């Protein structure tokens, strides 16, 4: 069957990229981040999610290679 890590990795990579880009475009938008105590949560979470997606894909493809 399909390795579940592939769809998980793909989805979080895509969402991670979107949120990171949003974070980059709004770096100077202090109004938007007033809610989140002045922290650009989009940039931070975007990178975290992107990393998580990559890790999932990395393990999925490493296993494929072994086979």
């Amino acid at each position, binding site marked *: 069957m399909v390795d579940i890590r592939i*769809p*998980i990795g793909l989805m979080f990579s895509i*969402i991670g990229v979107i949120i990171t880009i949003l974070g980059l475009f709004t770096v100077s938008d202090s109004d938007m981040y007033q809610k989140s105590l002045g*922290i650009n*949560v*989009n940039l931070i979470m975007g990178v*975290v999610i992107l990393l998580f997606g990559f890790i999932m894909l990395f393990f999925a493809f490493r296993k494929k290679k072994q086979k």
Partner: protein
Amino acid sequence: MRLELHWIDYLIMVIYFIFVLGIGWFLRKYMKNANAFLEAGRSMPAWVAGLAFISTNLGALEVMGMTGSGMKYGMLTTHFYWIGAIPAMIFLALFMMPFYYGSKARSVPEFLKLRYDEKTRGLNAILFAVMTILASGISMYALAILMENVLGWDFNFSLWISALIVLAYTYLGGLSSAIYNEVLQFFIIILGLLPLVFLSLKDVGGWFGLKEKLAPIATANNFAPDTFTTTWKYSTEAGSNPLGVEWFGILFGLGFVLSFGYWCTNFLIVQRAFAAESKSAARKVPLIGALPKMFIPFLIIVPGIISLALFNGHSPDFRAGFPMAGDKPIYDYTIIMLLKHYLPAGVLGLGITALLASFMSGMAGNVSAFNTVWTYDIYQSYIRPQTGNEEADGKHYLKVGRIATVAGILLSIASAYIASKFGNIMDFLQTIFSMINAPLFAVIFLGMFWKRTTGHAAFTGLLLGFLMALLHHGLTIPEGATTVFKGGWLASIHVYPVEMAQNFWTAIIAFTVSTVVTVGLTFLTEQKKSEDELRGLVYSLTPREADDSHLPWYERPAGLAILVGVICIVLTIMFW
């Protein structure tokens, strides 16, 4: 309490739904027979089944309810995790899973049939099927109301669209699709709610800042200053903690009867372990699930506790927007209010998607358990038995399983509409059905560890335990109850300080009656099953497990169980 979503938020939601449906689409070609569709072909790796195991439990009513309880009861809410789940999960893994999985039973009712007899299975299968549909309907109703209030979507539209998505992926890919999506949902719930924890903690000045802010609130309510940030410290008397239950009720009612009843016998949960690829994988499933389970309180309960500080003085904004019922906040909205308060567009979309995901994982869990019990325990046993032609049977029951999936969803939608008209009656029915788990645990436990237990005794124990629980509910009321649905519909001979105490004692009584009746009648009736038939189902008649001492500790169920147990004890002591 309306939330304004940005188009980016909707984009994230749409990407998630594309993946959810895509998983179902990719898995459809593997669904060649009933076995693949209803049991995932018993092929899931332990970690996949383990995360699905915990994700099914992490439904939206859990996320919303536990955050709300955090705001209401403080750190005491962790009792539902550290004492109210982990011991039962360890017990299930080490002592019950070998018999469940080894029996080759495809469902909990079928295990009852193998161990006891047809009538015990029938009783349990029918109650379970009805209960599952109701539970799924109530959760769909809650989702649609939430979408209406928070996002401004039409009630009917939200109800049908979410039902259609769940239907699509469970119809296409069966249990495998439900399990795969539960793993996806697990990660999106964690990542979606993670920023809340950090932001809210930073806002109140960390854990110590939070303690300081909660002290005056606790004293104002006549509790000790650190009541909301401790767990067992004020449990000697029911009145000295906001939960309103003393240590015995927590330990025996929640920690033993309710939690073992839920985790060890609820097919909705146990089914995920049945789908594991081997017996040792099946035993690891609850333990792998227990690892994240222990830390979920920090994700959903801690922000709830912080809401209490925000609500009482720290943030006037937060309080002003909070939906109220009279002078009390409506606790179920806590998580929404937190998302609204802290998250900007982008991560907000992820948070809302996480909440939607948790609704779907609960609904898909109910549907995939319902179609299995319907197909195997009702249709195959009473309507059309197997013919002996395995291939034709497999195809036939696959079709039945798929029809049951559609029917299950339609019935859930119907019960969601009933819930929207008669909310009280649905709550009442749910309370009643919650009474079937405690007697079920008594009967399965006795069946697994005492070979003498007979079918007549088990059936009577199950039925009487349930009826006595019902009687107890009819004779007692929680203080301040205004409707008969909360109890006391026969007479009122005892008043409990809080509803939770009443629930705990209902379960304790159901369990005790069921145990006493089953043991007593076993001595009076004859065992009809031979020792041969009971092999693999009863502890004393089953050969010991193959020696796994050559494996590293983390691949052995016992090693994992010790790890889980130690972490759980450390957490309990840290937050005593």
